[in-house]
């Protein structure tokens, strides 16, 4: 028996696999065995009601998708009243993703979702900060530190900071989030991107630009996760392009404690469960008793080309 459990940012997970915010909802319970997941992560909720962006809201691109869903939200009150109770009957930790457009707004919603039934709060600081010209909080270390400090004061629950890959200063932002009181980092949200329909010469998304996710981003986000692992002491949760157990293993090997699976679920509704099964198989086949031992086992050895090519003889 492989021990798949991990301690991750203030909570214990039965296994390191959970959904990425915005790619999961209770509807999935009718399709897969939700109780097998390491945690539930809800779609980001905002203080007030929001409709979201104009359609088309998604577009496929080679190896991935663009989205500009725009965080439609029923507002935090309806969320606390209706959504949180939906998950009460599962014995799986519930992580609530929140966002707001000012540091104070963030602290306020954080306080309001800190209710029984919630195991941790994921703060989507990849969203625009209207006090910084609409730049996302996590674009710069200073704004990251400031918002995290306010959030830290607003709750006793574990705080996971979800970073944006659009920054040019990932390690510094990671350090700022940790210094501001984050218990874990989620690396990362989607990468700003676009595509054009050459027949109509229009952007394929109603909002022109949107976030890229799926296999195309994996090598980029994996690199960022690795940079964050080296920059901070708190756990890093890898999130970007995980379609298979092999992808999840790459994240664990570079040092992530857990992973989130997003887009894959759209293509294969059972993707998260397949990833869990695959992690267990890998551990069994490689004599790894606890998956936690796999974290950060990236080998520093130089490539021994001789051995590699010899293998083919």
């Amino acid at each position, binding site marked *: 028996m492989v021990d798949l459990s991990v301690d991750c940012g203030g909570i214990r997970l039965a296994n390191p696999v959970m959904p990425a915010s915005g790619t999961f*909802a209770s*509807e999935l319970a009718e399709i897969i065995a939700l109780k097998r997941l390491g945690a539930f992560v809800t779609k980001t909720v905002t203080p007030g009601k929001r409709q979201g962006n104009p359609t088309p809201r998604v577009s496929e691109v080679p190896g991935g998708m663009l989205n500009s869903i725009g965080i439609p939200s029923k507002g935090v009150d309806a969320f606390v009243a209706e959504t949180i109770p939906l998950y009460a009957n599962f014995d799986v930790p519930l992580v609530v993703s929140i966002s707001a457009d000012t540091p104070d707004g963030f602290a306020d919603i954080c306080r309001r979702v800190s209710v029984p039934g919630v195991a941790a709060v994921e703060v989507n600081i990849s969203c625009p900060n209207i006090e910084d010209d609409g730049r996302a909080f996590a674009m710069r270390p200073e704004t990251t530190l400031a918002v995290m400090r306010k959030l830290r004061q607003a709750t006793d629950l574990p705080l996971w900071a979800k970073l944006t890959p659009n920054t040019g200063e990932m390690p510094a932002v990671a350090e700022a989030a940790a210094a501001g009181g984050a218990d874990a980092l989620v690396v990362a949200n989607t990468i700003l991107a676009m595509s054009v329909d050459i027949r109509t010469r229009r952007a394929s998304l109603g909002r022109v630009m949107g976030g890229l996710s799926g296999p195309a981003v994996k090598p980029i986000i994996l690199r960022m996760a690795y940079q964050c692992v080296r920059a901070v002491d708190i756990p890093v949760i890898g999130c970007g392009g995980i379609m298979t157990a092999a992808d999840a293993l790459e994240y664990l090997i570079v040092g992530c404690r857990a992973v989130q699976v997003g887009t894959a679920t759209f293509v294969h509704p059972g993707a998260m469960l397949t990833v869990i099964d695959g992690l267990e198989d890998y551990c069994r086949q490689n004599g790894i008793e606890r998956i936690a031992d796999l974290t950060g086992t990236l080998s520093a050895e130089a490539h021994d080309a001789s051995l590699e090519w010899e293998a083919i003889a």
Partner: protein
Amino acid sequence: MQAATLPTPAPTPSLVAPRAGEFDARILANDPVNAEYRLMTVAVPDGSANARPGQFFQILCPHSGALQPFFRRPMSIYRIEPEAGRLSFLYKVTGTGTRTMAELDPGASINLFGPLGNGFSLPKDGAPIALLGRGVGLATMAPLVSHAREAGHAVTAILSARTPELVMSKDEFLEAGARVMTVTDSEGTSAVENVENMLHALHGEGRLGALYVCGSNRLMLAAQRVSRRLGVFGEAALEQQMACGVGMCFCCVRPFRQGDEIVHRRVCSEGPVFPLLEALEW
């Protein structure tokens, strides 16, 4: 505009909604129907063929050469044969995904996810119904014919197309027990005024107890006008691009009228079948 009083609908009764699942299905046939459309029939596992009219599947199209297509493709169920364990999809060869579907040979397998979404509701009182469809809309409404016939409803179908040759499935509709009328652009019979007149005539004959529409925005608006004027219950099956197909991603929203408000609803999980009068123009 005055709000019509409508008979309350009941969900389609006879069929048990199966749990949605993802599985590989063996292709039994995949043949051209006309220059644009193909009909694919697949063998599905136990129970999965118990889908409701109006439901759809998310189809994982084979990958063509490189990197596309990424998303699954939503396709209504065109024919439901629970005893034989068979389902069919009538699809138009349009872009990347359907082009790769068209290349599949019998014996190959294709990955399906479904059945998904909510099917059509029939009026409680055995009232006669009318179907109004164009293009892929016909695929969506086809299984409603036999389903309604079995539940004791008389069915009239108005099939719209660009030309008489492109009117699909007329025989299928007839065999399933519908009275069929066709309107086409080339004959000048498909204009909305004409279709509205036909619906009014049907109503006069006592054959418009409920109205179902799919496949054209213009036809949907016409159906709404008729429904509103005559106080006839109706449903519209809508389309929107989809990613997850099960209500998680919120990409497939369309605007609806809900009282005084305009709200977004997800076509995949709150539809694809919606109350006719709530659907807003696309």
